[in-house]
Structures are given as C-alpha cells and as structure tokens.
C-alpha cells in the first residue's frame, strides 16, 4: 500500500465520518461544522486526483461561501428549534435502510463495470490544462452557451434570493 493510498483512506474515512455526523448531529451548528469538515475532505480528494483548480475552488466556494451562508441562515432561523429533541423524522429507519440498500446496489452495479478496478496513475504535471479549459469555456464551438447561461442562472438566483429574503415581514395570516 503506497503512501498515497494511506492518505486517501484516512481522508475518505474522515470525510465519510463527517458526512455521517452532518446528518446525525443533534445540534444544527455542529452539523454545519461537520459539513465544513466533509467539504474539506472532498477538497483533499480532489487534490489527490490532481484536480488542483477544483480543490481550490471547493475550498473557496463551498467552505468559503456556501458554508458561511448556511451558518448565517442557521443563526437567522435557530430560535424555535429545540436542540435537545431528535433531528430526524419518526420513521427514520426506513430512509436509512433505503440508503444502505441503494449503496449496495450502486456498489454491485459498479462492480460489474470492467474498468472498475482501473488504476489512476499520476498524470504529468502540466496536464490540468487550465488555459485549455478557459479557452473551451468561451469558444463558440465549445461551451460558451453554458458559460453565458450560468451567468443568467446566477443572476436569477441572486435576484430571486434577494427578493425573497428582503421582503418585508407581513403579518402572518
């Protein structure tokens, strides 16, 4: 077992454990902090895959912005939530069962794929060609439409979210 494999295993275990804690914590704030841990783990997984750009982006966007947004929201809405009562619905065992079976199914399905055991070798250093990615993004024969549509999506999200969040408090019916 190579050093990288050891690193992967440690990171994966930590990531999955934090993932479980995200859905299992009683305190919402803890949940959110575990989420950050998970996201960090995913970022390291990206790094082990030599996707440096996305590892950085993961840290910047997910940890730097999305988590912060979630934590702010928690602070805005935490008043009523009783931290001591359970956080899951009554019949939680059924989703749990479903998740486990689904995992089994996915694993079984993946195992039938011939490339499943394929090895990921180290790529040459310059292979994550960011410039090629950037060029393709604005190339009319490439992805310029998704590129522009993304900005419209973001615009819509921004406008919509501000509109919804800033609406004046009306009297509850």
């Amino acid at each position, binding site marked *: 077992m190579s050093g990288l494999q050891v690193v992967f295993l440690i990171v994966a275990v930590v990531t999955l454990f934090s993932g479980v804690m995200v859905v299992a914590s009683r305190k919402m704030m803890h949940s959110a902090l575990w989420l950050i841990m998970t996201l960090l783990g995913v970022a390291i997984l990206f790094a082990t895959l030599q996707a440096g750009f996305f590892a950085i982006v993961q840290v910047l966007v997910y940890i730097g912005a999305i988590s912060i947004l979630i934590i702010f929201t928690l602070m805005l809405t935490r008043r009523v939530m009783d931290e001591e009562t359970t956080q899951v*619905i009554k*019949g939680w065992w*059924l*989703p749990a069962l*479903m998740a486990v*079976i*689904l995992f089994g*199914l996915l694993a079984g*399905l993946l195992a*039938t794929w011939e490339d499943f055991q394929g090895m990921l070798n180290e790529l040459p250093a310059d292979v994550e060609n960011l410039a090629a990615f950037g060029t393709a993004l604005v190339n009319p024969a490439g992805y310029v439409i998704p590129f522009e549509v993304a900005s419209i999506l973001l615009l819509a999200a921004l406008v919509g979210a501000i509109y919804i969040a800033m609406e004046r408090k009306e009297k509850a019916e």
Partner: protein
Amino acid sequence: MTSETLTWLIPLPPLLAFFLIVLFTNRNKALSHWVALIAAGLSWLAGMVVFIRAVTTEGLSEHPFAQSIPWLPTGDTSLKIGIQIDPLSTVVLFFVAWTVLMIFIYSVGYHNFGQPAGKHDRKGLPPEGAEVKEKKGKIIHVPSIEPMYSRFFALISLFAFAMFLLVVTDNLLTLYVGWEIMGLCSYLLIGFWYAKESARKAMIKAFLTTRVGDVFMLLGLAALYSLTGTLNYQEILSNPVVLGQLAGALSPVFGLSWAALIGILIFIGTVGKSAQFPLHIWLPDAMEGPTPVSAMIHAATMVSAGVYLVIRFFPLLSAGWEPGGAVTTPMLVMGIVGAFTALFAATIAVAQNDVKRVLAYSTISQLGYMIAALGVGAYAAAAFHLVTHAFFKALLFLGSGSIIHGMEHGVQHTSEHIDPQNMLNMGGLRKKMPVTFWTFLIGGLALSGFPLVTAGFWSKDEILSGAFKSGNMGVFIALALAALLTAFYTARQITLTFLGKPRTRAAEHAHESKWTMTLPLVVLAVFAVGAGWSGIPADFPGLGGLIPNWFEEFVGSMLHVEPVEAVHSLVPLFTSLIVALGGLALGWVVYRGLKERIDPLEKQIGGLYTVLKNKYYVDEFYQAAIIRPANWVANVFTYKFLDQTIIDGILHGIARFGVWLGNGLRNVIDLPVVNGAGDSAARSTRGVGMYLRSKQSGRIQQYMVIAISLLVLAGLVIYFTVGIS
C-alpha cells in the same frame, strides 16, 4: 438576406415582444402596444417578403426553402429543428401574417386605448366604463381602458409567436411545441377576464377538451418517430418509400395499417384543436374571451392549425389512395366526422342568439367543411377554404366585436340592463355603424358563399364539386345542406343585427367604432372578396380560364400524384348557387322587419328549436356520461372503496397480523431473545402500516421516501431477476 434566414426570423419578433412587455414595459400601456404592434409588423414584413419570394420560385414544392439544425441529441440521432417554406406553408403564412397584424391593430381600439381608467374597473373583469366631467360640469359615461391592457398584448404576442412557429417549422416536433404554446395562450386568453366565473369555467373546459385530442396526437407522433426515426415533413411525407412502408405494415390496433393508425391519432389531435364533433364543445364557450381573441385564436389561426396539420399530413393520411379509388380509413373517418360536424354545427348556429356564438358554431361548421373536403380527397380545395375562411371569419368576428362595442356604448348611454351581445336586442345598426355594416355584410356574404364576387363562393364551390366528383353523395348532400343552413343563419344574423328598426333603446344609441377597429375590417373585407380570385376553377363556365387557377396549381403541386380530371358536371355549381342564394333569401324573409324580441322560428318549429338552442344537449350528455361517472369513480370507487376499504384494510390487516405474530411469539415461545424480535417485528410492521396509511400527509419527505423505496425495490428486482450484463 436569404429566404431561409428570413424565415427563421419570422416567429422571433412576437416572442421578443412577449418578454419585453412582460419584463419591462408592463407598466406603460402605450409602449406595450407599440412593442407588440412593431413586432407583429416585423413578422408581417418578413412573412410578406418570404411569401413573394416563394410564389415567384419555380418548383417550390420539390425544392422548398428549408434548413434545419440538430437540437436535442437522442443517442445516435438527434431531434432537429428547422424551417420549411413550401406552397402550403406559404399560403398559410400569408393569411396568418395578415390576420395577426390586423387583429393586433384592432385590439388597440377594442381595449379602448386612449380612454381614461374607470373608477370601478378591476383586473380580471371587462372594463365597466368611466365617468368624465365635461367643461360645463356635466358628467358623461365613456368607455374605459382595459385594466390589463399590457398583459393582453403580451399574451397575444406569445400566441402569434407560436402560430408563426407552427407555420414555418419543418417537423412535427416543433409543430407540437407551437401547438401546445397556442393551447396555453388560448387557455390564458379565454380566461383573460378571470374574475368572471363563466370565463374561468370556459378556460378550463377548453384546456381539458383540447388536451384529450393532444394526448392522442402525441401518441401518433411517438409512433411515427419510433417507426421512421424522424419527424421531418420532407423525410416522411415526400418519401414514397416511407409512406409505402407505413401503409403496408400492419399495426396492432383493429387491423389498421400503421399509416392509418398514425393518421387517425393525428386526426384526433385535429378534432380537439379544430373543435370537431365530439370535441367541439369548448369552442362556443371560448367566446368568453375578448373578441380579438375569439377572432384570432378561435377563428383565424389556432383552430386553423388543426386543419393545417391534417392538410400537411394528407400524404400520410391518404397513403395507399389513388384519386378516384377507394378512400383510406383515416379519410373515411375524416369525411364522416367533417361532414357531420359541418351539418351538426350549422343547425345549432341557427338557434343561437349571441352574436359571437353564432359565429363560433359557424366556425366549427366551416372547419368541418375543410375536414370533409380532405376526406373526399379535395386537397387544394381544403387549403383554399382554409385561407378564405380565415379572412372572412376573422372579419366577421372583428365585426361582431365592433357591433358589441357599439351596443355597449348604447347600453352605457341609456343604462338599460340588456345583454349587448344578444342579436334580438339589436336591429337597425346599419345607419349607426355603416363601416361595420358594409364589411360585416361582405364577410357574411363570403361565409354564405354569395356567387361570383366573394371568396367563400369559390372555395366552397370547389369543396362541393370535389365531394361530387369523388362520388361520395352522403358527404355531398350533408355539405350542401350545411351550406344552405350557413346562408340561412348568416342572413338571419345580418337581418337581426343591421336591418329593420332598433328593437331596444341601446341599439338606437349605438355608434361606429374608432378607426383602429374599422381599418382592420376594411382590409380584411378586401381579402374576403379578393382571396377568391386566386382560385377560380378552370372549368367554371364563363369565368374559368380568364384568370388562371393559380391556387390549385400552387398548392396542388404539394401532392406528388397528379389529380385525375373527373367528369365535368354542372350539378355542384348549381347546388352551391341554389343553397347560397336560397338560404340568404329565406333568412331575410323570415327575420325581415322583426318587431318583438322573440325568434319567429321558435313558434314554427317549437321543440326542435329548444333542442337546437341547447346544442343537442351534448354538454349535458358529457356531464352525465363522463364527468359525473368520473367523479363517482374518484369519490366512491377509488377513495371510499379502494383506498379506505381495500388498501387501508390490508394495512390494518398487516398491522394486526404483525401484532398477533408478535404476541404469539412472545406468549408461545416466550424466550427473551425471540420475545424481543417478535415485538420489534410487530412494531415495524405496524410502523409500515401507519407509515403507508399516512402517505397522503403533504410531507414531501414522505413522498420522496416512498419514491426512493420504489426505486430501490425496482433496482433490487432488476438486479436479481434480469441481471446486469
């Protein structure tokens, strides 16, 4: 610009106008209608340029203006979108562009642009009128502007986009897209005055009824795609190999060939959209919308789209048919449905008093004409009647809107409480509204097929002679009778409305509408006369041959079979002369000089009149035969019996069984380990029971749990039975 590029551009301005109005100019009424008008004008301009280029192109049917690009990749192939201008779409484009533009202009006047906003006007209701103080301090009543003026133009622009899209497209998929957008716009515009309950009901009725047809059409479309792998017109309809295969292969339904099955499915879509029997019930109710909507959607364009579709698919519908030979199953169905609808709707129209409802039934009847024409193989005649009908029916609807407007003015003036749409309340409007009268007269004469001068005569004559030549006497007689009735109720309408003396005070105070409303009337009147001159049959005595029968040559070239010249006969000509003139004269004689506000027919034919007035009780029949049983099934069978008795019973049973099992295990075996297991088994089974029982809880998570459970279950089943190779 090349014709192809120009054709691509035709539908776009109204779409842009829709977004512009909705997003930006909504507040400003003047800006909104300018945006819509300019967009319609641009489409019109592009449409006319394409039209002129198309008619001057030799051999357009073999080499249409066409272009397509891949749109949605579907595995190895991809769905394509594209445009195609061939003779049929050329003529349809022509009348669509004209009527759309005219109706846009008309709408400005119809919705009282330039008038003050009424004090009591509410969104979702027709404007009630405003009070204006004159200089001397006298308060007068004037019409007020529509509160949702901008919304109207936005919706109607979207509608225009869909119609243009449907016309210029080269495949069934985009046609279906346009078709459904029009359905949506129709729904929204019928319910434009949504605060009226009748309008709300009408919109739902229209939507649901057309949906019935659309589902079948979608089935046909899917079958066509799965069989041929394409939805492109050229690749299916101009390809004898494909058509031959479709006509030869047997489908699993009723021993029909695939061509016949698909043809019938597509035709059912037309039945819904073009309001043919038995799905015609929505169209008369659709008159709840503003009059420009009735004119545009429910007379000139959307309902024509249904007929356009079957004309377009005529090669498929008639696959295996030789002119003069036995007709195919879809053609037979079309002939029967069309002829029946034409006669059926015409009889109802005779007994309607609402000025717009008469026209609505007349529309159904005329569309039946076109369908019947296709059923007997009179391809060019159907297309010809489609064009002329669009012009004169749009004209009639707009004219009726103008009449209603004038009457509403009178009602406001006199504060009488009468229905401004009821023809029995009118009379003598000829003097008050001269422009409306003359244009309406032209439209009415065209509708009834007044000989030689009107467009309706030429197209109707062609259909009659087509029916006669095909030897299908049943269809011929039904159509001739329908034509007689058409002339009769048209004369009735004109006489009741315009001639004689005013029967109410409101009618005395009616007055002519503004120029924005009368100008479209005049323009359309020109076409209601002139459009006929493009299609005078060559064998017509006297006139034939003076002007070449351009229309039949142009559109007829779409069919790659040369029509066989049948035995020439004067019978259909004389029939159409007699029924048109006879019907008109009869209507005039019966209703001339009517004083009291009762239909004289009511005394004459009594019970039959009641049946006609109630539209043969078709609505009531549907209520009793479909809607009530559906309600019953939903309420009694599904809810009370299936849900509460069976499913709940099973669940309770499972729960009880689980409890029993748990108890049994505990009591009989009575070991702590088994005891615990039994308890938990019982509890979990009961839990499942309770869980499923509360499945309609409104909790999305539970719905999702159920959905995912079923997915997982399906996955397990596939995994263990089929296996994954």
